């Protein structure tokens, strides 16, 4: 069974609330993590991201100066910083559909609604580490593939255009594990 060695991962926790940062740090330490950096606002978080090159970030939404969504938009800039692909878990009290959709469209990797639980936190990190998704870049989006599943019963239009990828077909697990075809240098 696959196990995640948290001790080999570098985390950056971004939340303006000291209590929530302590809770998250305690949970991560419980999982076995040792390298946990904290930032209390978007500006110091971007600096910590740039200098610390974390493996996984936890970002709160509601923060002063610039909020979590704005921070994510700064990070998801291909070519503009060290790792625009960094996995981001948005940890927030916002639970409305419009908010979840906005977070997804800003390029989050996972959404985790408060109140926090150890089980759900572990599941999100496990998913990121064990089942990484490719990134999609369009004129209006850069972030993890928002299609987590391919549905055999989907009958709507294919919104992505172009050659062989026009057809939506369910992928076998083994196919998902293979690198995508037609590679070229970035």
């Amino acid at each position: 069974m696959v196990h995640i060695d948290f001790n080999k991962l570098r985390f950056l926790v971004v939340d303006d609330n000291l209590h929530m940062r302590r809770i998250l740090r305690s949970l991560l330490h419980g999982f076995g993590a040792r390298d946990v950096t904290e930032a209390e606002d978007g500006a110091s978080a971007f600096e910590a991201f740039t200098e610390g090159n974390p493996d996984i970030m936890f970002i709160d939404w509601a923060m002063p100066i610039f909020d979590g969504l704005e921070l994510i938009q700064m990070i998801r800039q291909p070519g503009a910083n060290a790792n625009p692909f960094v996995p981001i878990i948005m940890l927030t009290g916002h639970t409305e559909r419009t908010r979840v959709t906005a977070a997804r469209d800003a390029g989050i990797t996972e959404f985790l609604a408060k109140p926090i639980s150890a089980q759900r936190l572990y599941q999100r990190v496990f998913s990121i580490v064990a089942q990484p998704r490719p990134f999609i870049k369009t004129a209006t989006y850069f972030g993890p593939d928002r299609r987590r599943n391919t549905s055999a019963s989907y009958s709507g239009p294919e919104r992505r255009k172009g050659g062989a990828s026009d057809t939506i077909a369910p992928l076998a697990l083994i196919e998902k594990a293979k690198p995508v075809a037609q590679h070229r240098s970035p």
Partner: protein
Amino acid sequence: MAQDKNDAPTVAAYADHEVITPPNRLKKAVAMTKPAGFDPVARAEEALDNLASEFPAWMNQECEQLDEVRQKVKAEGFAEETRDTLFRSAHDIKGEAATFGFPLAAPPADSLCRLIEHTPDMARIPMELVDQHVDAIRAIVREGARPDIADIAQTLTRRLREVTDEFLRHENRDRPDVLNIIAAPSLVPRGKAD
């Protein structure tokens, strides 16, 4: 930071999008065997339990902060900064109350967040309704040990939510998109984790 060749992402280009496979930096953390007897979730829950003795004090601090911001709003009126600070304070309580052992304080905090977020003209937010929310949250936390606190809190919250939603529907009567947001159920049931 410089990238070597192995760090380069692979890219499949299509007519209107690219599929990019970034280098998998996290595979270093995947182990095929778990250390005997190690349960990471149980360990994390234990770590949280070790913090639990501090939670009542933390909850009181959050309530004090909410009260301070409320007093500032009353003294200075709603401005962008005071509105945002009040929203964040209520939002923190909405997200943390259950973790701190005060789940009944989360729904009125959620109602206060809705009032602040969905009132288009902040000058029209009724201060009396803000007061009622803040006082309800503080009372629910303060009286948390009462055997009948669940009934009291639910009655209070239901009434606050009714009045708030009625006010928001009126204030947004010409904004159908906002009315839809107000009427839409949360993706996450209130008071429960996701």
